[in-house]
């Protein structure tokens, strides 16, 4: 019997086979990011002043690290021009270079995700698909014509297990193009449809998803959406230096649940000027599909209800814009004079010709919030 047992033990070798069968299981770490999928959160309302992050005294800061950027710019949180509450972020460029400031979520050694710096609310995975904020450009910081863009809003996405000493391990660096009006508060809605990514071709990368790997997805982790993965982001006038102040208020992250054609109408921004009554809505069109001669976009408004509730035909047309005949990266604007004096919130939508889908937003005029 003992001899037979010895032969059996010999047969159980080689040891490599034995190890493969008996590798010990390791107790997994607990899941992370457990939370309620909420209606939204506030990244910053600036009522607490200029916040710090670890060894970094300024979570929002001037960027002076590139040639051509203003070296004399200043940044503060003050009460000079609040939009919501009593304070806003106040960046001033005296004119020695281009305007450039950023959400500087670095504590001296690591970069946090944007969602780790919320001033109100709590993050949970795949809970948000938009980031909105108010921005003011001083008079004279005029938009660029000929379908150009004054602002590049640069973002970085990082995989949830990516190296935290980097801004974008497992993700990439994206660009959103904006062309807001000056001398008025503009509501910007950032969506997961950037206009470019570093290393990519000069064509539209499309709507960034969760899976598929960059550039189809925000990261290579397969679970993070664009706003889960967002780390540092910045606001830059890369082409035309403009002296003056930029104010930012009420930066929020939220879930847009209504139908919203971000594939064709991306990087949305809108404003209403209480002096001139100019109602403006701007966006970046899809580079792949909207260069044909029959492309027209139409905008409607309602002071009664969201366009999603009314349907596009339930809004009042205030303008349209036809084909531009240009190539990639074209910003469009639709404008009309509409007296919204006394209106709390105006609801806007843009629709591409021939499409049943549209892009919609609310624009508080006298109502608080965003």
């Amino acid at each position: 019997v003992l001899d037979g047992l010895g032969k059996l033990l010999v047969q159980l070798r080689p040891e490599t086979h034995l190890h493969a069968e008996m590798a010990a299981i390791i107790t997994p770490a607990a899941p992370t990011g457990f939370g309620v999928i909420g209606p939204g959160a506030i990244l910053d309302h600036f009522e607490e002043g200029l916040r710090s992050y670890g060894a970094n005294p300024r979570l929002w800061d001037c960027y002076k690290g590139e040639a051509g950027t203003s070296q004399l710019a200043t940044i503060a949180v003050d009460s000079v021009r609040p939009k919501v509450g009593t304070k806003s972020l106040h960046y001033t460029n005296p004119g020695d270079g281009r305007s450039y400031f950023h959400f500087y979520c670095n504590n001296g050694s690591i970069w946090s995700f944007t969602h780790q710096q919320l001033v109100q609310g709590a993050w949970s995975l795949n809970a948000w698909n938009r980031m909105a904020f108010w921005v003011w450009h001083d008079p004279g910081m005029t938009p660029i014509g000929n379908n150009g863009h004054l602002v590049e809003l640069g973002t970085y996405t990082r995989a949830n297990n990516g190296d935290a000493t980097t801004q974008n391990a497992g993700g990439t660096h994206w660009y959103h193009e904006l062309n807001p009006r000056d001398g008025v508060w503009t509501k910007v809605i950032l969506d997961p449809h950037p206009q470019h990514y570093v290393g990519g071709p000069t064509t539209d990368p499309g709507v960034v998803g969760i899976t598929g790997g960059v550039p189809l997805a925000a990261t290579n982790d397969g679970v993070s959406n664009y706003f889960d993965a967002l780390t540092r982001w910045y606001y830059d006038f890369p082409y035309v230096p403009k002296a003056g102040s930029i104010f930012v208020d009420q930066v929020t992250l939220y879930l847009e649940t209504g139908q919203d054609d971000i594939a064709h109408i991306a990087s949305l921004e809108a404003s209403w000027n209480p002096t001139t009554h100019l109602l403006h809505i701007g966006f970046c069109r899809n580079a792949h599909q909207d260069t044909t001669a029959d492309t027209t976009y139409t905008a409607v408004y309602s002071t009664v209800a969201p366009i999603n509730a009314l349907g596009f035909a339930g809004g009042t047309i205030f303008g349209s814009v036809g084909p531009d005949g240009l190539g990639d990266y074209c910003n469009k604007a639709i404008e009309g004079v509409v007296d919204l004096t006394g209106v709390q919130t105006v609801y806007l939508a843009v629709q591409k010709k021939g499409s049943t889908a549209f892009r919609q937003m609310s624009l508080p005029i006298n109502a608080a919030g965003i």
Partner: protein
Amino acid sequence: MSTPNPTFPPLTTGLSWVLSTLGVGNVALPAGEAETGVTLGLRLDGDTTHSAGNYQWLIPLSAGIVTESAAALEAALAKLPSPPAPGANLWAAINQTDALSGSPSTSAWTSEISFSLPIPIVQPLPPTAFGSA
């Protein structure tokens, strides 16, 4: 963006989480170890017979699931003994179970979060006595 009850926000959409791909102490998992499911633990606020890590209701979820809608959670709770009433204030945590060659191992519970179950809205009857005067 007001928060009527900041401690127990209504669960309007659902819950979400990120599955762990590391072991305790952030060590790498051996080849072949894979997540086989998570368990949601829930207890009533104010229930002194239960506590963090000791839950009245346990809801197992299949491998790969990273969200649980409010409707799915309510349906799962309704199948359990003495389910919480609509509007109940709850505390919840989640743990993860992996398996390797048939051997399971379960993580610690996450930190607890709190929320309230939604109260179903009832469609009102039409107004009455509608007429011209």
